[in-house]
């Protein structure tokens, strides 16, 4: 009887220990997940990115122009689109707008240009994927819509294609 009692106590103790272990494991997992890196969080585009743009230096040109810009992407709150402040490597500051669905992002901005300059001006459209967990902005498409009219182009203006990629600076 004593043995049975002792066995019963041991079983009860084991069950209690197992329960406590399970509870401890759950608490520990919850704590880890709550402090989990961005891999477990939504891939937000909000933050500061250093982005390298490469596109032709003029409509129809085979010479590429490369510039590095910094995008300070502001939160959009409840809006489906947001704003950003862009600084280029010549010290110009100008605005851009962005949209994100999942990891896919779309950005558009007007190039900063001087009135009457010989250099062509245009509008930039970027399509890509934001991967802040690994600190990357993966470029899928860069479009320049130049100011030069072209009735043979579906947009009625000359366009060029380029590439871009980005690195997350801070978030």
């Amino acid at each position, binding site marked *: 009887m004593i043995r049975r009692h002792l066995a019963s106590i041991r079983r009860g103790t084991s069950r209690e220990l197992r329960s406590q272990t399970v509870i401890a494991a759950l608490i520990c997992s919850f704590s880890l997940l709550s402090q989990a890196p961005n891999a477990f969080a939504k891939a937000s585009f909000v933050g500061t990115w250093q982005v390298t743009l490469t596109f032709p*230096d003029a409509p129809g040109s085979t010479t590429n*122009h490369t*510039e590095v810009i910094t995008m300070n992407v502001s939160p959009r709150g*409840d*809006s*489906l*689109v*947001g*704003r950003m*402040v862009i600084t280029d490597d*010549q*010290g*110009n*500051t*100008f*605005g*851009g*707008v*962005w*949209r994100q*669905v999942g990891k896919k992002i*779309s*950005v*558009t*901005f*007007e*190039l*900063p*240009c*001087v*009135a*009457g*300059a010989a*250099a*062509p*001006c245009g*509008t930039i*459209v970027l*399509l890509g994927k934001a991967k802040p967990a690994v600190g990357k902005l993966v470029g899928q*498409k860069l*479009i320049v*819509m130049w*100011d030069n009219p072209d009735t043979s*182009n*579906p*947009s*009625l*203006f000359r*366009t060029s*294609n380029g590439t871009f990629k980005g690195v997350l600076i801070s978030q």
Partner: protein
Amino acid sequence: MIRVRIAAIIFCATAVVALGAPPRKAPIHKKLVQDGSFTLTGQWTVTSKAINGATYSRMGNTLGFPVRNMVFAVDGDLRTGEVLREDEGPNVIPLGDWRVEGNYLSAAFELWCPDTSVACGSVVMRGNFSDSDTINGTMAVFFETPDPTTPTGLDTWIFSFHGVRQTTSGGGQ
């Protein structure tokens, strides 16, 4: 005499360095200088219509032809634009940016797309001021639908617009 020689050597060396330096490559674009003749700042009512009867893009996408109220503002270095889509809802506000050079304008917007099953895209607005309160031009929509027949690889749709300024003050966002 020695001082003269030293000065001459320094002068020559400087000249050689200056003449031998590679020419500075002109930047592709420079600091934006807003022409003072015209400005988009203010609220505009913009109407649109099809060009050559094209109410849809080649891949079947369209924005329709709603009347758009647009607000443009200047916020420091930023030139902001927004579209007040009251027809879609009070909180539907596509955002954009703009520039003006002489009587030429360009503005770019990101579409507001609550339904992810419908193609979204970017809109570039290009036109001219016929006077300080009237603008005309075309809008090009680059839908995020592939179209290998276009130079950009994106489904592209254009329509014309006519805008009349309602107020000169721009709230911006």
